[in-house]
């Protein structure tokens, strides 16, 4: 599904990604771990076609990121650090706008359904600017999946969420997985990573330092490997 070969990204004479090779199959749920500044967000941005790689190849379902960018963009649901929401718009208006951009059919129903799913029906007509961090994150999640993407790119999706919202998010990921959706999730929350992911990638200094599968939610294995690789060396 996702094929990355020798991907590098340079910004201001600084190599942020130094040769990433990665292959991800459809339906996998992959957690990307790594220290701050390792290049995790940059990797997701390159995939989301937000920034261009300096060198290397990326193929999504055999499609070229640049040449077939419209088809590729339809596949992705991208949730970065910022919410990508318009402050003075209500959740419904935000979702309608992005739904229309993605050409979602019956967008009004879909938007209302999503707002309900993230538990904000009560605030559906309040402008987003009055919301708390966690509420904004909930709408941001809804925004990212409005067009039922085939691949989710989530950048630290758990930040600011309360317990209830974490459960909602995990359920979203798991139910999308059942539909065959692939997920790449940057996170610092090992517990959630072990909970919902079946593969862990550890990124360090713009390279993939480790790549392994986990089953039976073995949190111990994740933190053990992470500490050995990241904290051990420091």
């Amino acid at each position, binding site marked *: 599904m996702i094929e990355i070969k020798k991907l590098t990204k340079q910004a201001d004479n600084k190599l942020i990604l130094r040769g990433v090779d990665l292959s991800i199959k459809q339906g996998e749920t992959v957690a990307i771990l790594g220290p701050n500044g390792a290049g995790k967000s940059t990797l997701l941005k390159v995939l989301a076609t*937000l920034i261009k790689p300096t060198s290397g190849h990326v193929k999504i379902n055999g499609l070229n990121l640049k040449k077939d960018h419209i088809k590729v963009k339809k596949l992705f649901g991208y949730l970065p650090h910022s919410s990508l929401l318009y402050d003075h718009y209500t959740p419904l208006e935000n979702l309608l*706008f*992005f739904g229309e951009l993605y050409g979602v059919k019956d967008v009004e129903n879909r938007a209302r359904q999503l707002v309900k799913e993230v538990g904000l029906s009560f605030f559906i007509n309040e402008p987003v600017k009055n919301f708390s961090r966690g509420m904004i994150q909930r709408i941001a999640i809804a925004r990212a999946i409005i067009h039922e993407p085939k691949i989710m790119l989530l950048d630290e999706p758990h930040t600011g969420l309360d317990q209830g919202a974490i459960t909602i998010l995990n359920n979203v990921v798991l139910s999308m997985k059942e539909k065959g959706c692939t997920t790449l999730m940057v996170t610092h929350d090992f517990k959630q990573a072990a909970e919902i992911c079946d593969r862990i990638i550890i990124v360090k200094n713009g390279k993939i330092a480790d790549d392994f599968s986990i089953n039976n939610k073995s949190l111990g294995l994740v933190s053990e490997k992470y500490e050995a690789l990241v904290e051990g060396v420091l």
Partner: protein
Amino acid sequence: MFRAALTIAKKDIYSELRTKQVLGTMIIFAGLVILVLSFAFDPANNTTKAVIPGAVWIIIVFSGILGLNRSLVSEQRNDTMHGLLVAPMEASSIYLGKFMANFSMILIVEIVAVPFLFLLFDFKVNGSILYFILVLFVGSFGFIAIGTFLAALASNSKSSEMLLPLLLFPMTSPVLIGVTQATKIILTNMEKLPSAIAWLQLVAAYDVIFFVLCFLLIEYVLEV
């Protein structure tokens, strides 16, 4: 592509109707310019009629800059521009959408400000209103087409408020020279109409060339 552009333009205009921030500022600004002009030049005096064609374009240029700046800087909050960039459409749709929104806003300002200006100065149009509307349309089109592009260019910089006017004046001066000349002739001296039309043709050609250029190049400007 056109559908996405329309969605973006609709979003911008709708949010403007909601907040009335930018349009309000533009119209207040236009009103102030007109008032100051009426203090400086005695409306009763006949020679002041000569400043009217210029005043029309002063209003459009300066209130236009206010709107142009906001139109792209507003997409930086919460990185909504990234949301547009990862959506399945060409970058030129974003340009087209922003252009349509800015163009409608400047047209609204013109519809409010120009009659106010003419009324306050008791200005009787000795020429053709239709031609005047055509000049306004062609001139605003070029100004906004180039301005939207440059606003996108400047919005990547920290000092976009300063950069935009600096870039805008050299780029749009052919348009502005052409339309002020044409406006002057059309409003005061219809005998020279052929020369006004020549100016207008020149501006229209410039408009088309730059609109197409901006449309094609916007992809490289919007890159993160």
